[in-house]
């Protein structure tokens, strides 16, 4: 599989870059920690465990959304240094492999932050989930992939706009609303144990498949936009 080889080469490159600088991970980890502290001050979760269960799903995803926004904004501007992006455009490798490699790299970064963040959540917010906790192992990666694949695509898109830092949330949030809705409701369903998250997991799977295909198909157009 030559295509897979290209994807892995891009992935290796991104992981190595991150391993050497650790910019994203440090920034995202500290940022999400700050968001958690601010939310805890606003809602006082330890005194009201029922409310903590109700809102934690939403807070977790909002914190992750903001954190991944900061990282995604950087992930393509990295390629602008020394005109690396132009070199990629000239290379005969398929453009979508470039996208998939970077999306997987971003997925791994955000997942790492997510694992740390979930533990911090359980400790700081005194959480006792009432539903099937193991389902989170399915919901978290699916939700993260929905955020990251669209986010990687739209940050490549906003790379060519004038104020790209602002442009990414402006285009990403409206498109991601169904995914956000599904991941928040699924997580809340697991935490509170009130309802079954099955429907929302299906929505997330559909969303992931549809938008990953759309991104892969349209990425070549975006990369060679001008």
């Amino acid at each position, binding site marked *: 599989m030559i295509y897979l080889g290209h994807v892995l080469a891009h992935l290796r490159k991104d992981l190595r870059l991150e391993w050497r600088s650790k910019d994203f991970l440090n920034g995202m980890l500290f940022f999400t920690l700050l968001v958690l502290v601010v939310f805890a001050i606003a809602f006082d979760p330890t005194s009201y465990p029922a409310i903590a269960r109700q809102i934690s799903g939403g807070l977790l995803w909002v914190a992750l959304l903001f954190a991944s926004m900061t990282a995604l904004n950087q992930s393509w501007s990295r390629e602008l240094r020394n005109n690396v992006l132009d070199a990629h455009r000239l290379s005969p490798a398929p453009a979508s492999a470039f996208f998939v490699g970077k999306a997987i790299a971003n997925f791994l970064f955000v997942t790492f932050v997510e694992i740390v963040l979930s533990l911090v959540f359980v400790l700081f917010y005194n959480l006792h989930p009432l539903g099937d906790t193991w389902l989170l192992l399915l919901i978290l990666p699916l939700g993260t992939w929905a955020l990251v694949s669209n986010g990687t695509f739209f940050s490549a*898109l906003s790379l060519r706009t*004038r104020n790209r830092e602002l442009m990414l949330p*402006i285009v990403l949030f409206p*498109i991601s609303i*169904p995914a956000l809705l599904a991941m928040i409701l699924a997580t809340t369903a697991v935490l509170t144990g009130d309802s079954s998250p099955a429907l929302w997991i299906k929505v997330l799977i*559909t969303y992931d498949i*549809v938008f990953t295909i*759309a991104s892969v198909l349209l990425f070549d157009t*975006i990369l060679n*936009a001008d």
Partner: protein
Amino acid sequence: MNNTANNSKRIPLWAQAYFLLTLAVLAFGFHKAMTAPTEATMGNLYRVFFYHFPHTILSFVFPYLNCAASFLYLFWRSRNPARARAADAFALASAELTVLYASVGLATGMLWGRAAWGIWWAWDARLTTYLLLWLLYVSYLLLRRFSGDDPGSSNTAVLSAALAVFAAIDIPICYMSIRWWRTQHPSPVFGGGADSGIDPVFFPAVLWNMAAWLLWGAFILGLRYALERRRQRAHSDLSLHTISTPQESL
């Protein structure tokens, strides 16, 4: 509609006639809306419905035009650049119309909601989906505004066409997921909606206003399209001029 794109400064006669016809139908629609019998429960406040209904229905039509034009743009981009630019102008015009009609639909809907339910806004399935439609196309217009150094670069057209395709895919998913969300938690205020059947006595007013706002929407769409085509032409003339005269800065 292509006839407006010729180089003459004059507005073609048929466009003027069409404009007058639109104004006449708008006036007649207004007359019908104001002279329709007063509704039993809401009194005269219900008359906002004659404006709310056409705007909401039509704001679901323009996104499809936008999506189709964006697909055509992507298809023609390398095959027929001149035609692709026309498709892009049409995509821009239809996106602006979507935002305009959805804004009027939201505003009149809120007036209606205040009168019928006593609250301006409810997070029920339809209202939420509709708000998201509005948000999607506002973000589309913002992307167009922010991309590229000049508003008509091919960069803008490609990026916004990609976003338009994403938005078009997003709408059905959004619609379904919000419906599921709200059927799990039914909203108490919903159920007194206007679509639970209307009396035939209101049909003329509804249909005339529908026709009037359809004509008006098509007029604005054509006007905006012609304007954008002119801007594109002025831009390409300027580029040709810059290329033909020796200058170092563009």
